């Protein structure tokens, strides 16, 4: 396999990655819903337990207050995947160690702190997450789109190689052409922009604003590990992979975020229901997906959604009437363009489109990450 070098393209890709790198490393749970930036604290004490589990690692430690009473605090940290990619192991801290922790404390006043900084008693930092923890995994790649012998683009790795898609350049739906300021969780900088994000019906706009006002704390993914389905599959920092089973006209989409679920795209020309349980009485999280190739673009029509999940970071609503037209175009070796047209007459006044690029993480496997890991 030879890659055609294109310095300008590589530089552009690198610039894109650098832009990503300045985004907050924690992009999967709305930390703002639980912790209040205006209530910062620095606490010291001895560790009682380390719970090395996804979605968020926890360290518990005993803090002695001014009154001499010892209280057990929970330090919440990024995922085990992000910590491991930053060079840490579960054994890097252990019960009995003395630590000092700085960060915002819980909005509800409980003894919890988001660990912005954790230091050992000798002053060395531990369990820090590097700012570019995801971007650093990828090498900017330019080269021709890999193809099957019949010239159809490959969505997965070239033969003999590994890799997956991640590093989405957009992590919340916004109608193409609209410019509004929001963070990686889809939280608007100015709630007054809510009506600009998409052509929302009034009730849907009000619900969207309510979710935003609550810092997304009602997110079913956050509460119950409900799958990040719909376009949200392609907003995850943990990435996804295509497995093309061409002989059977099936494409598996394997996700690394959420609970590592798979989704099936049927490219076998069927026109009826795709997945046996998907019907009006039993709508689905991932919907029924019928795929076909239009030139070099895989076009996927999806319908049959339930309303039990949020289909984007940031909390844009949808209804059972939602249909999606997804277009996947691998424009070169390292770039996948995703464009989704949202048609939901239940929540929006007209169909609208949002699109972004994702990048290829070469030579690596999807991380093993399960939101359910730490749910009791």
């Amino acid at each position, binding site marked *: 396999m030879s890659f055609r070098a294109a310095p300008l393209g590589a530089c552009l890709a690198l610039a894109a990655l650098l832009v990503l790198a300045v985004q907050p490393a924690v992009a999967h749970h709305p930390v703002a819903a639980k912790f209040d930036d205006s209530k910062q604290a620095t606490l010291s004490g001895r560790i009682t337990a380390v719970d090395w589990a996804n979605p968020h690692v926890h360290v518990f430690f005993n803090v002695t207050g001014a009154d001499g009473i010892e209280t057990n605090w929970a330090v919440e940290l990024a995922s085990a995947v992000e910590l491991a990619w930053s060079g840490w192991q579960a054994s890097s801290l252990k019960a009995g160690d003395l630590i000092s922790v700085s960060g915002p404390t819980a909005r509800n006043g409980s003894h919890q702190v988001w660990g912005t900084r954790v230091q050992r008693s000798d002053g060395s930092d531990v369990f820090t997450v590097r700012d570019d923890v995801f971007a650093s995994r990828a090498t900017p790649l330019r080269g021709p789109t890999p193809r099957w012998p019949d010239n159809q683009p490959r969505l997965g790795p070239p033969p003999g190689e590994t890799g997956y898609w991640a590093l989405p350049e957009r992590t919340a739906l916004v109608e193409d052409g609209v410019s509004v300021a929001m963070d990686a969780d889809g939280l608007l900088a100015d709630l007054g922009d809510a009506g600009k994000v998409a052509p929302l019906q009034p009730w849907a706009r009000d619900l969207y604003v309510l979710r935003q006002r609550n810092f997304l704390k009602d997110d079913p993914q956050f509460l119950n590990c409900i799958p990040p389905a719909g376009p949200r599959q392609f907003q995850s920092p943990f990435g996804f992979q295509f*497995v093309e089973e061409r*002989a059977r006209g099936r494409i598996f989409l394997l996700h690394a975020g959420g609970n590592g*679920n*798979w989704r099936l795209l049927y490219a076998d020309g069927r026109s009826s229901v795709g997945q046996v*349980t998907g019907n009006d009485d039993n709508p689905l999280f991932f919907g029924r997906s019928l795929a076909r190739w239009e030139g070099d673009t895989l076009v996927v029509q999806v319908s049959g959604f339930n309303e039990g999940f949020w289909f984007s970071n940031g909390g844009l609503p949808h209804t059972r009437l939602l249909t999606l037209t997804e277009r996947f175009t691998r424009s070169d070796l390292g770039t996948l363009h995703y464009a989704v047209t949202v048609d939901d007459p239940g929540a929006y006044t007209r169909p609208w489109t949002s699109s972004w690029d994702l990048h290829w993480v070469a030579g690596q496997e999807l991380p093993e990450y399960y939101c359910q890991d730490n*749910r009791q």
Partner: protein
Amino acid sequence: MPTLLRRAVASALALGLACTAALAQPPAAPKEPPRPAPRHADGRINFGPPDGEVGFWVRRTANLVVNPDSYEAERAQRAPVHIKDIPLQDWALKLTNFRHDLFLASEPYTRCKPAGGPRQIMSPYGFEIIDLPELQRLYIVTTSNAMTYRIVYMDGREHPQNLTPSYFGHSVGHWEGDTLVIDSVGYNEVSWQNRDGLPTTEQLHLVERFTRRDMDTLDYRVLIDDPGAYTAPWESGYTVGWTPGEELFEYVCQENNLSPDAMIGEGRYSTVVP
């Protein structure tokens, strides 16, 4: 909750699971002998459907061991190994018994935790083996439990050193004649190896053998080698049946998942009269 009530709940649960299993059983075998196992053009066994057909695998027997003391005893009787013959270390035996004392209420599977090894193969709603020789790997994809996937490398690589323990560990496979042999290490200690709550440690090493005996039947054998929990390696297995005409479907365990509450919680059965 009173003991009697808990027993009633456990019995109802066992019955429910048995019914689920009965529903998931493939239809009775036809009179004529089954077709031979399908093969790919290069002669290797095809674990999927022949061209133009669909189907998936569902276990026909459901436990690794016979355990007459389990509330699932009737189902477990079909297992090939008696629990008294499992070379459990003392602590592992005590933990297994403790889990039974609690009617297996601490079951991770009920909590939608992914299950590796033999537990994945006893998935009640089916699995498929996606064989991708060009990529030199297989995926084992399941509907039930976590609705997730597991990678098996077929490129001759070895297990890496210093694996971070995980639900599915690290699996490498090879063919021995018509049998697919998968060797795995690197497991965490969350999963149970079967519904009887058999524990394992991070030292677990599994050797699984998949033999498609004919079109309809897959013999699954597993060697459980864990010097952390057992005094010797031991072997068991399941018979897995082909379910023709069916396709994998969406199953999101977390959807309205009240199972931990419903099965073990206090209060949800307050209106049930034992």
